[in-house]
Each structure stands twice: as C-alpha cells, then as structure tokens.
C-alpha cells in the first residue's frame, strides 16, 4: 500500500476537525465552576436575611409596644390608699385591714392573675 492510499483510507475514518461541541465540553465547565456566583448568592442571601430580620424585629417591637398591657399592681396599695382615703375613722380601719391582708398575701404566695372565664362567685 502506498502512502497516498493509506492517507486516503485514514481520511475516511479520521475526523477532519474536533467535534463542534468539544470546545464547549472542555471550556464551559471551567466557567461554571467559578466560585464567585456562589459566594455572591450566599452573601446576598445573608444580607437579605439580616436585613429582613432587622426589619421584622422592628415591626414586632412596634406591635409589641402597642399591644403590651401595662404592668398590673397586685399588692402594697396601702401607702397610696392611706393618702387617697383620708382620715375617716372607718377608712383608717379599712386601711389597716387591707395592709394586713396584703402582707399575708405577699407572705403566702405571689398573687397570680386568673385565666379568662374564671369566676369568683
């Protein structure tokens, strides 16, 4: 077989050029494997989560301020009552009684708020 015939035979089976997608197969994955989009996405998520969290906390604080009941005084009314009730003899007896009851209550246990619907009847 002459060289010319051999080359002719090889030409039949050897591609004249690389397949068209070879370049993409070799070069594109390198582009996809870049780190920065992941890093940017993660950073963006972190920033968004932090910003939303701050904004959400602010909303909750505003709502909470509007909807939180004031603290309830549960004991030790006697000093104010003494001033408010004056010097009526019966009222003074009441103050003494009230002070004693409140002292006993404080000593016995902390006064707790009853649940809705409870009745003292």
């Amino acid at each position, binding site marked *: 077989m002459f060289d010319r015939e051999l080359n002719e035979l090889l030409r039949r089976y050897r591609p004249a050029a*690389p397949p068209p997608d*070879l*370049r993409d197969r*070799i*070069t594109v994955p*390198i582009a996809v*494997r*870049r*780190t*920065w989009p*992941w*890093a940017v*996405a*993660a950073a963006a*998520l*972190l920033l*968004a*989560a932090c910003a*939303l*969290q701050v*904004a*959400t906390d602010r*909303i*909750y604080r*505003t*709502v*909470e301020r*509007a*909807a*939180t*009941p*004031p603290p*309830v*005084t*549960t*004991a*030790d*009314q006697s000093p*104010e*009552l003494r001033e*408010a*009730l*004056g010097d009526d003899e*019966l*009222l003074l*007896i*009441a*103050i003494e*009684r*009230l002070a004693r*009851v409140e002292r006993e209550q404080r000593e016995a246990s902390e*006064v707790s*708020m*009853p649940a*809705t*619907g*409870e*009745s*003292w*009847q």
Partner: protein
Amino acid sequence: VAVSDRPPRVRPGFRRLAIGAFIVLTPIALHTAWDHYEARRLAQLVTDIRSRNEPVVSPLAGIGPRSQSSQNAARYYEAAAALVEPGAALYGPTGLLHRMETAPVADRSRLLEELRAWLERNREAETLLTRATELPFEGYLPGTDYSFRFDRLYRLVNVANFRAFERLEAGDAEAAADAVVRQLRIGRPLTAGGPTNLSILNFSGVLSRSLPAMGGLIESGPSDVALQRVQTAIRELDNDAAIEQSTIAERAFWLGRHWDDRRHWYARQRDGSGLEWYLVRPYMTRRLIATGQIMSELIANARRPWPERLEVDVPPQPSTNRVTSAFPFLSRVQVEYTLRHSYRSRASAVANSLVLGRTADAAIAVARYQRAAGGALPRSLGDLVPAYLTAVPIDPFTGREVRYSRSADRYVVYSFGPDKKDDGGVQVTDPAWASGMRRSRNPPPDLGVSVRIQPKRR
C-alpha cells in the same frame, strides 16, 4: 484543540464553602421572609384595629379611668371591700354562700340567723358601701388592681345581696330596695374598664342574684321614691352594645396575651432571643392573625340587630392533647371553637342580664303606674311611656318588645328566654329560686318578673 490552561481562580475548598453557605442560608432566608411577611400582616391588623379607635390592649390590665377625687366612690368601695370578712365563713363548701344556695328550705330560719350574724360582723363594710353607693364613680384609685376588681368587689355584692334578702324577710321593703340599689351600683366599678369576658360573667352573676327577687321586692311595697331609685340603678347598667364591646375587649386580650403571657415557654424565649422563638414566631404570628380575624368576624356579628347577634356557628369541640391544646399550637379549628364558644357564652350572659334588667324596669314601672292609678293596671307597656319608662324595652332574644300579660291575681313582664318560645310567662323563675338567693341551675321557660296584684303590705 483550544483548552483553557489557566489555573482555577480560587481553591476548591472555598468554592465548597460558598455552595454550602448558599444551601444553608436559603431556608434561613426563606424562613425570615415568611417571618417578615407575617409580621407585616400583624402590623396591618393592629393598624386597622387602631384606625377604628378600637383597643389592642386588654382593658383587663388597664382598669379604666383613675381618679383620686375625694368625692369618688372608688375610695369607699376599696375600703369597704377591704373590711368584708374574708375566708371560709363566706366561701368554700361549708361557707354561708354555698349553703344559702343549696340548703333545703326547712333550714331557712337557721341560715337567716347565721346570715344576720355575718352581716353584723360586716356592718362597717356595709356602712362604707352605702357611702360609696351615693357617690359618683369616677375611676379607680391609683394602685388598685385586678384582684380588687373581681374578688373583693364580689364580697361587697354578697354584703348587699344578703342584706336585701334579710330585710325582705324582715318586711322592711324600703331598706331592701336600698340594698338592691347598693348591689346594682357595684356594677359601676365592675364594668368601669368596659365590658370584658370576666366582668360580664361576674356582673351577670350580680344581676342574677338581685333581679329574680324583684317580684318579691315590688310586692313588699317600697315607696315610689325607692322604686324609682331601683329603676335608675337598673338603667345605669343597661348596655345594649355590651356584646360588641366585650368582643372588642376579648380581641385585645388575645393580642396582649400573645406578648405578655409568661406562663408559656415561647413568651420567655422571646426575651432571650432563643432559637425556638425564632423558629416558631411566624407560625405563632399566623395563628394570632387568624385569631384577630375570627374576632373581627365576631365583632361584626355583634353589631347585627337583636337577636341575630346572639347567633353564632360553633364548630364541634375538637379533640386535643397537651401539646395541641397549648396556645399557640392550637389548630385553626381549635381557635375557632374556643373563640366562638366564648362569644356564645358571653352573648348569652349579656342577653340574660339585659332581660333581667329590662323586665325588672318594666315591672317596677307597672307597679308605679298601678299605685298612681288607684290599683288599675296599664293595658300595655306603651301606656307607661314616658312617665314610667323611657321606651318599651326590647327583648334581646326576639328583637321585639318584652311581653306583658296580666291575669286575675298577677301580672308578668317577660322575655321569651333563650329558647325564643312564648311560654306565656307562666314560669319566669326557677322554683328553687323563690328566695332570690339561689342561682338557677336550669333556666326557666321564660325570663322576667312576676308580681302578685294584691301585694300584702307589711
């Protein structure tokens, strides 16, 4: 073939870290976005409520106006309540209150003696209560609290109630009427922060003690002035919008409880910015918003005319366990059941209270007319307007005027009652209620006041 021979820009470890961070942060960001969305909805709900000048803080906590005026009844109520003998003599299974409600009629005289002894021991409190009754109630004293409002005030109700009963037994109609007025006017501080679930139930108890005995009081023949005072005290407490107002207060209570209830772990977590709090917050907020929306529906229902405002669909009670019965883990069905059931109870208590007050007012008006007309009864309640009634009262159970019927020996002013059927006013009180002391366990067919036409003057 052209192949990039440039080296990777970063190390593979950093790339894996970035991908890992992205994967971890994605659900966190989504959860935060959900949290933010629910927070904005909650803020919108609160803004909407406030824009209608409705409260978002329960009036249970802020107990209404406060005043230190020397002419304010609150100071005397406070002092009187402090003087009432507390403890087992009144409450408890062997207490006077329980025995008055359950003891057989045969024990009446012995109980009456005990009652007189108890009243004697509480005479100072009664004196102060009388002073309080005559003064305007301008608001609570600074520092007075929740337990005063619902516990100690109720002791005062018992003082007045026992006295009314005792005086009726003694045939002293004038003093009995005064005691009824004292009892009714305790309703002023009881409802000072506006009607709430609790104040309505308690106040309903006050009325159910004083007003069923109204027939006996009228028959005992108090003066026209005394009857007028009772009428005035009854009208002071007639609040046609009580269901709406109490439902608004209930919504505020739920909103406030969300932030304030330290009995629940999530409320404690909130202070420490715990992870659990962060995780459950949007779910809890969603549930809270659902609660607010259901309450708003119920408020709209409460604005309908009588008797439609009494009607509310209550779903069957869902089964619960320890976890799911704890707010905020209540399911939507459980929330619906709880709120709607509560509304129905409250509406029923308000309707009963209004009926008791309105029929008593009208019955007294009939008695006063009869007295002025030399014994003749009015043909209809319309004859009493405007001299003895401002208008013919409306029956909440029907939306129509209360019924008036007369026979040879008695007249009856009555409402159809919760069954909304006209039973002719034949039975308007529970027979066990005859003394006026006992609370009814089963509602009678109709509700109202029955008065014998020939009262036996004592």
